[in-house]
């Protein structure tokens, strides 16, 4: 909590013959974030070579297995990894097993496709015969037309107009018979001497000819009767092929899942090895692991390499400026939802403060202030509890976190509802412990500003701590959100508040304010002076003077606007009370002689749903806005690198 997990940089040197075992052990351990290729210096291989080829082969097998599973309608089991893997041997074994299943499934799928095509063809012939039925003409006679050339077939419907335009050199007739999908069944006629032209045109319009089987020689009516038998026969065959496919699916389900897990694990490990450093006969595995897990990692590496690996741990202090250390946040499970809110904005850098606990408190408190109502809060809390404790089916992964936030916000709303004396918008059911928003607007708004001042000061404090952690002390002093900024904020605050409260303003305060303004104005050269950087001013002096002035101006405006921004806490509390009273007034209008009618109950229920859903959403957005812009802007850059360890799907994880 409060800061990301402490990391250690480790360099592991292993011989060629042990690299597979060590890589596998590390992947099972699941707590080593590999260093980027460029950090390997002369050891870098650029991810090319034997191992990347092998990773690509395993990736291909993985894809083929998933394809097969999709074809056989097998749902892949939750990701797991096999007990052992053999990076070289598994490739051949999986290939052989995969080929056998693919061959079997491929043959059945081809049979299935042929039968489906045959059934489609019978359907098309049936439509053709329907059209010919009234003519009582024999099909054998149609095949032996002396002067007329007849073609039946299907073409893409979008090609019809172009086909007709292409037949500009000959007289012809096109009869659309039946449209299905994006194709149309047509009969095309022309004189026998123009047959080659018609055929070429039809072919280039992507016509698929519909050949009438030779055995059908009677009239269209007779053919229709014969078609029924053919269709039944093929449908029966199709059913049996599908049954066979289902049987294959049952037989191979376990094997496919095992192969998938094995190919995936092999691919992950092979990909990792392709990015290890390598020189002559030694691999360099460099990366970061949480400091409290270094000993475990050392033990598993030594076990996997039978004591032949060299393991070096570099203390965190030795990380250079350019080494980007990954960030691993370790917050209690209950704060995972809030952590999600933070990481949506950005991941804290390794040396930054993790604002998750702070957000957990301020978010819930600010939501409660704006949405203070015992009834509405309890409804929200109930909904949150149902989601957080998985008492209802969850629509998505990680919804529990949202449930926990909802539960916290609901309880906070209930607490402020008790303070405001409000339940479902009714303000006369019980007396509030503090004030009624509608009757004490000014007090509420001023209280909101005071709350904002507290939150902002926490933000400034976090900025100072972050700067100190990062070792940028000058920044902690001269930054507009650092010590100088904080001091100026309080000095100006005192200069404004003392006369308002009827106190005399000491002259020293003016001097102090002036000094702080000058310090902020000269922040860049002063910082450079302390850190020994030269020149003190980059660019021309005039440019610096203008830029510094506007920055100072922006800072001053920022102090006021950031503080006043929190007025919305009080404003929304008043708006909530107002909106709730509108619902009550509407319900009263529908009541009969002061008694609740069915219509007024509907208005009450519907109105409260709108208030909870619609206004709750707006208040949530406003709270998030205050967190992101007013608080995070003070100290949080969110440019951290996520800790992504080399890990098999079911690794222990950090």
């Amino acid at each position, binding site marked *: 909590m409060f800061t990301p997990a402490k990391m250690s940089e480790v360099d592991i040197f292993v011989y060629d013959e042990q690299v597979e075992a060590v890589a596998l052990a590390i992947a099972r351990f699941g707590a080593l974030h590999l260093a980027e290729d460029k950090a390997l210096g002369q050891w870098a291989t650029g991810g090319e070579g034997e191992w990347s080829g092998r990773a690509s082969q395993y990736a291909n097998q993985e894809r083929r297995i998933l394809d097969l599973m999709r074809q056989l309608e097998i749902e892949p089991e939750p990701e797991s990894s096999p007990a052992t893997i053999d990076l070289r041997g598994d490739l051949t074994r999986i290939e052989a097993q995969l080929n056998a299943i693919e061959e079997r499934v491929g043959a059945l799928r081809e049979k299935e496709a042929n039968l489906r095509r045959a059934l489609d063809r019978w359907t098309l012939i049936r439509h053709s015969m329907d059209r010919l039925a009234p003519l009582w003409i024999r099909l054998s006679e149609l095949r032996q037309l002396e002067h007329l050339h007849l073609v039946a077939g299907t073409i893409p419907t979008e090609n019809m107009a*172009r086909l007709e335009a*292409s037949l500009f050199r000959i007289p012809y007739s096109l009869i659309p018979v039946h449209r299905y999908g994006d194709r149309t069944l047509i009969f095309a006629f022309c004189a026998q001497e123009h047959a080659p032209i018609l055929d*070429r045109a039809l072919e280039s319009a*992507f016509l698929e000819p519909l050949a009438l089987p030779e055995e059908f020689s009677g009239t269209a009516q007779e053919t229709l009767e014969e078609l029924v038998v053919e269709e039944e026969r093929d449908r029966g065959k199709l059913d049996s092929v599908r049954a066979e496919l289902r049987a294959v699916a049952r037989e191979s389900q376990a094997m496919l899942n095992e192969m998938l897990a094995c190919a995936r694990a092999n691919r992950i490990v092979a990909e990792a090895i392709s990015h290890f450093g390598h020189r002559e006969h030694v691999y360099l595995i460099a990366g970061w692991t949480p400091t409290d897990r270094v000993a475990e990692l050392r033990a598993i590496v030594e076990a996997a390499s039978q004591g032949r690996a060299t393991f070096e741990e570099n203390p965190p202090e030795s990380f250079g400026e350019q080494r980007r250390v990954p960030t691993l946040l370790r917050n209690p499970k209950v704060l995972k939802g809030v952590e999600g809110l933070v990481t949506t904005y950005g991941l804290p850098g390794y040396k930054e403060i993790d604002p998750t606990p702070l957000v957990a408190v301020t978010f819930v408190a600010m939501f409660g202030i704006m949405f203070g109502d015992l009834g509405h809060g309890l409804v929200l809390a109930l909904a949150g509890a149902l989601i957080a404790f998985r008492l209802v089916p969850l629509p998505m992964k990680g919804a529990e976190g949202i449930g926990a936030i909802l539960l916290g916000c609901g309880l906070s709303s209930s607490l402020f509802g008790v303070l405001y004396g409000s339940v479902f918008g009714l303000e006369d059911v019980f007396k509030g412990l503090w004030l009624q928003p509608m009757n004490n607007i000014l007090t509420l708004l001023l209280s909101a500003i005071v709350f904002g001042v507290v939150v902002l000061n926490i933000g400034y404090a976090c900025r100072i701590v972050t700067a100190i952690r990062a070792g940028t002390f000058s920044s902690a002093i001269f930054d507009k959100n650092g010590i100088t900024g904080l001091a100026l904020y309080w000095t100006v605050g005192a200069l404004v508040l003392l006369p308002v409260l009827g106190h005399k303003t000491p002259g020293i305060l003016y001097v102090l304010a002036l000094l702080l303004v000058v310090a902020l104005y000269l922040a860049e050269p002063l910082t450079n002076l302390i850190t020994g950087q030269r020149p003190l001013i980059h660019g021309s002096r005039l440019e610096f003077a203008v830029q510094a002035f506007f920055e100072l101006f922006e800072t001053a405006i920022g102090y006021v606007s950031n503080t006043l921004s929190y007025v919305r806490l009080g404003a929304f509390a008043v708006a909530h009370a107002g909106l709730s009273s509108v619902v009550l007034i509407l319900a009263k209008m529908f009541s009969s002689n002061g008694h609740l009618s069915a219509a007024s109950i509907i208005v009450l229920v519907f109105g409260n749903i709108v208030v909870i859903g619609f206004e709750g959403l707006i208040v949530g957005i406003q709270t998030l806005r205050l967190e992101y812009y007013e608080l995070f802007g003070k100290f949080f850059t969110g440019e951290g690198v996520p800790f992504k360890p080399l890990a098999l799907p079911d690794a222990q994880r950090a």
Partner: protein
Amino acid sequence: MVATGIEAVAYAGASARVAGLKAQLLSSADWDALLSADSQPRMFDALRSTAYARAFRAGESSEPNLESLERHLLGLAADNVVHAMSQVRGAARNLLLTWWAHFELENLKAVFRGIEQGLSPAQMRDYLIPLGNLSRIDWEALLHERSVTALVERMAGTHYINPLRNALHLYARYGTLFPLEVAMDVRYYRDIPAAIKHLGAGDRSIAIRLLGTRLDILNILWAFRYRIYYQLSAEEIINFTIWHTVHTDVTLIQTIATGAPIIDVVEQIWGRDAIDLDAVAQARDEAAQLPLLELALHRYWHSLARRAMTGYPFGLGPILGYLIVQEIEVHDLVTAVEAKGLGWGRQRIAQRLIGSAASGRQVE
């Protein structure tokens, strides 16, 4: 009608970016150095001192793999379209995305040819233009297919699947990829007019002038090629070309298909003076005229793009103009590199180039 007000402001950033990118186009001094190089390796050295140095793989020797270099040069052109897309929004962005898809189409054709020739996935990868993460096609899955039929089925979920399925039986019958490639081309080039339709009036007009002209050129060249090189029938030519573009329609294609002379057709569309057809007129027969026509039409297209690139800055024109000029420059580079490899002289190479080096004009 030109973009004004908010629309114009929205284009200001993009125009500024294009103005910066224009400086990366090859200058006449760059072209001079490239064409004057006494060998292909020297030409590579000259190319390494330009913005195209990125096309050479890190650590590659002075004689890179030509195929790979060409694909990486085209990859830079594709990258430029992606960067331009990030500068604009809405219908303009969609048009650029659609235009970018022609690189994807090139890759698809390369995969079909590779599978047809039995190349391994690793070999085929060398023929692909690097497209980054924008493509939604699972290229690795395509590369690992074992037959053209399976490859077609692998395209399920893309808008190419129906045209490919329609053309598949012709592939099965004749064993040539021609019908599949025609089906993909016709399908793809229908998307461009559809994307142009959604633009505002000012952008639509410039897009029609630039991309519409591209479609005109392609359709005419296809029709002549089918007639002159492949001796296809009139019916086949009509069915294998685009139904209608800005200046071409089925009547014009019928005219070409039934033997209209090349020069008559071009003059019918663009008049007598827009396109320099002297070289075409002097060629001995139609087969010799066709490559010269292609060059003349592309030079015309290039001149339109150059004009748009330096025209009214607050619209789509400069962006599209720059992208076309830059892509043509890449094609010219590919031509120059290959020609240098064949030992051609400076003058002979310059005659084959489309862009500024050929015409002796400077990109402003």
